[in-house]
């Protein structure tokens, strides 16, 4: 078990609601929550893996009751406090906070289109060749746990731990979230697409044995079989 966010394969969630779509922002505050998160992220105090981990670390009761943008907001508040940018006292009473000069990396409207349109590549150079070739059989590691930090961030879902699959693609070497989420460096690794037979993942709960599931797995998530 990792955390509440790691829900792939969970039973009990019922039918998928709102399949017909809807507006980009269903409420005005949704747009504001998204924009606040991106603008605060542009200050450079944390990276995307830290953002994800902050959402994952919401208490399960909050994670389950919050709507999507409520999770974003709560995780943003937690990040701001963790990184020393605001205090809990200021969160409960914003008016009490003194007015401060602008942060040197504050995002100005003129730069928004550039920043959002540029993106951030996660590909990094690594020394050494990829360990696994296309078609190679691999097994994912037996525990979903982050090996660097107890209770830490990882992108290996629990449903795919200790399972045999086949390499079906390599995306070059990319930043390792397990390290980057904790400020331990980017530690880039080769990133693969690994395909699993449905029955390997789901056993007796398999819906159709002809189907497959593919996930992206970093090299340290995998061992040769």
């Amino acid at each position, binding site marked *: 078990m990792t955390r509440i966010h790691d*829900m*792939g*394969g969970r039973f009990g969630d019922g*039918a*998928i*609601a*709102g*399949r017909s*779509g*809807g507006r*980009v*922002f*269903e*409420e005005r*505050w949704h747009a*504001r*929550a998204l*924009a606040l998160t*991106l*603008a*605060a992220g542009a200050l450079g105090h944390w990276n*995307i893996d830290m953002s*994800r981990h902050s959402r*994952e670390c919401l208490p399960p009761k*909050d994670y389950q009751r919050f709507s999507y943008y409520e999770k974003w*907001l*709560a995780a943003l*508040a*937690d990040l*701001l406090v963790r990184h020393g940018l*605001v205090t*809990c*006292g*200021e*969160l409960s009473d*914003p008016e009490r*906070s003194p*007015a401060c*000069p602008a942060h040197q990396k*504050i995002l100005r*409207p003129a*730069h928004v289109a550039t920043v959002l349109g*540029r*993106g951030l590549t*996660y590909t990094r150079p690594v020394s050494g060749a990829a360990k696994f070739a296309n078609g190679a059989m691999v097994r994912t590691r037996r525990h979903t746990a982050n090996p660097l930090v*107890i*209770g830490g961030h990882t992108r*290996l*879902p629990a*449903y795919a731990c200790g399972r045999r699959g086949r390499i079906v693609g390599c*995306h070059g070497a990319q930043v390792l979230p397990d390290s980057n989420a904790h400020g331990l460096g980017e530690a880039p690794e080769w990133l693969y697409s690994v*395909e699993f037979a449905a029955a390997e993942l*789901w056993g007796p*709960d398999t819906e*159709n044995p*002809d189907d*497959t*599931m*593919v*996930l992206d797995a970093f090299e340290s998530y995998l061992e040769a079989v």
Partner: protein
Amino acid sequence: MSEFDRHPGGRPPHSHLPPDPALRVMALETLLVRKGLIDPSALDEIADHYANRVGPRNGAIVVAKSWLDPSFRESLLRDATGTVSSLGFTGRQGEHIVAVENTPDIHNIVVCTLCSCYPWTLLGLPPAWYKSDAYRSRTIREPRSVLAEFGVNLLQSQKVRVWDSTAEVRYLVVPMRPDGTEGMTEDQLAGIIARDCMIGTALPRLPEPGQ
């Protein structure tokens, strides 16, 4: 307990915000503006960017081109990131794109079980259902049941391949071109490629005659 689960006084920081979500955003915005961390007019720009400037029309153009131009299709399947960049579709949550093509043998569908990863540059922001617990938990285990809820009936021969977006790679499903679209322009084709076709939860449909 991990250090992330420890909170002085037992309360995580976010619990100090007001309970109503709209008030919560306002409180946070007020605070961050006072602290010099946020320029409120940048927030308007960001909201406008995702409300009006990027959306599923981008992806639909990519798919339509791949239907019309075999060399574009080949390029898209080989190097989608480079190929869509050449159309100007670059940016956040679209840095590494992989296009996966439906065939008579395989139907592709995309999910992010761990959060809500999605190709923003090609499809805009994800719909609420894509971010729902039900879609995240069920699609990876019972894609056919999920597809049936979306009204998608697969060919008898088709296998399902579910892509779980667990890293920074974003997946674009390239649906099969339906019969009856011969002679349609790129623009007309893009018009029948709805957002959900590129997630894998719908199939392109010709407009009803007379519409």
